[in-house]
């Protein structure tokens, strides 16, 4: 059985309090974000059922939300996820080359994860960084003005961080 820590449960209560009484369903999107972060970077059925029980919702109410929004991962993902934007303005500035370079370097196509479970490549649609293209999202932050050299540095940085944390 999965369960949030007491600290996390307190945060969930704070989130519910942002909405009027009886409207705790509004909290489902923010609470799913926390659950995804907490339980391995993706939403399993067990995780979604747990969120439903916390908010007093039917499981289906959580599933239909989780399957609609692109930031929820419904399958396991790598430790680091490169979400590379490929929409018009990024394409004009060479995002296709960045995606190809990541494939050349790590051997993963969009939607795939490296065999060591370190990296997942995902192509995404416009993230609102058109003036700083090409770009990708990595965790909470944006990495902008990408070049091949920058990708090399980021991959290096991820590997170093992972080695440090082990």
């Amino acid at each position, binding site marked *: 059985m999965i369960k949030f820590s007491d600290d996390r449960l307190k945060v969930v209560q704070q989130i519910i309090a942002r909405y*009027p009484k009886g409207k705790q369903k509004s909290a489902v999107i923010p609470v799913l974000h926390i659950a995804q972060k907490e339980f391995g970077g993706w939403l399993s059925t067990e995780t979604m059922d747990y969120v439903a029980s916390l908010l007093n919702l039917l499981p289906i*109410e959580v599933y239909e939300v989780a399957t609609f929004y692109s930031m929820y991962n419904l399958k396991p993902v790598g430790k680091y996820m490169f979400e590379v934007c490929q929409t018009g303005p990024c394409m004009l500035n060479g995002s296709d080359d960045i995606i190809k370079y990541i494939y050349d370097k790590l051997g993963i196509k969009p939607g795939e994860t490296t065999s060591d479970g370190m990296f997942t490549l995902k192509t995404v649609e*416009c993230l609102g960084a058109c003036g700083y293209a090409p770009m990708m999202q990595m965790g909470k932050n944006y990495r902008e003005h990408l070049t091949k050299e920058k990708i090399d540095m980021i991959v290096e940085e991820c590997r170093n961080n992972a080695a440090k944390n082990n």
Partner: protein
Amino acid sequence: MGRKLLLDKIKVENIRLYDVYRREGGYRSVERALKTMTPDAVTEEVKKSGLRGRGGAGFPTGMKWGFLAKPAEVPRYLVVNADESEPGTFKDRYLMEFIPHLLIEGMITSSYALGSNRSYIYIRGEYEWIVDILEQAITEAKNNGWLGKNILGTGFDCEIYVHRGAGAYICGEETALLESLEGKRGNPRIKPPFPAVKGLYDCPTVVNNVETIAAVVPIVNDGGTEYAKIGIGKSTGTKLISACGNINKQGVYEIEMNISVEEFIYSDEYCGGIAKGRKLKACIPGGSSVPILPANLLLTTAKGEKRLMTYESLADGGFATGSMMGSGGFIVLDDSQCVVRHTYTLARFYRHESCGQCSPCREGTGWMEKILWNIETGKGKMSDIDLLWDIQRKIEGNTICPLGDAAAWPVAAAIRHFRDEFEWHITNPEDAQRRNFGLAHYADPLKVATPA
């Protein structure tokens, strides 16, 4: 140098912090509104200012506020739309990231005008780090008495909460946004009823863009009449333009709505010309949904007048020879770019973002994407161009929300103005894989026949 009303202080060091923002004259509009004006008087100033919604539709803000139903004992809500997702648009992000208190100040003043005691910022999920910035600003504002109960001793209560989405362009449509805020899938609602009557939790609600609410601050400080003096005609005040693509200086610019498109692209104050010494081929002046224009029609209207950065001038000529101000997402293509490929990425975007509720949009966007991919990769047929035209015509106007129109317009405009380039892809598939059509076509785009 044009006047700046929103970004004038953005370079002040630490303007993100409350103490600095306050020292620079921040929160005056709240004092002025709450202490010296009635809520209706604030709305009146916004009406006088001529402010139009900055999210894309350009609807007069004061009029929208005027529609808000005010039944007794029913809460009313202000919801700020920070779900900025229109390709080419990154202005709200800039404002929230670097001068967050401007939005919070505008929200308090606007909440007072509308009678909202609980206001929300719906921010796109990907802007996660900006949530922290906004929440810090809200905490600072609250600690200094600008939020909470009985603000400035006037009896007005207001709380602001940030609600983070989870990745869905459609949630920028106001009724989809409200559905999402209620914890559901972002499926747009059938209107009427409009949010002003039945919005969040079935209560009267106003949904406004970040920039719109920020503009309320200078309007209340200096008066609506003063604001309306800037700009031309019904394009009053300043507008944030996020410029991207093949230009020398990409970024967010605040312009007075009276400069020409040519000045905006070529002057050093703004975009600084086309990058790498190349030539301007085309431009989408208001976010990916609005029609693309070839260089000559962008700089000059079909009547031969200089095109200006105003709502009216950008739309001059209708969709036949004009475009729209939209959200201010200004995407520039140089002569090395391929219009077919660019249009394909936009079609893919709309297929990805269609909520799936209405068949014309759900099916049509995927169909257009596939056909464009075929043309781009040398597998197209001449009849595909007419088929694309036919599909987009059948999406436009036949869906619950404007996403259908937004998906149809870029395809229509690309065919309207760059049909030769599509045909070249089909008749020279091998060439099309190796090089771009460049400027060969753009010299005389007006003579291209428009399919009926």
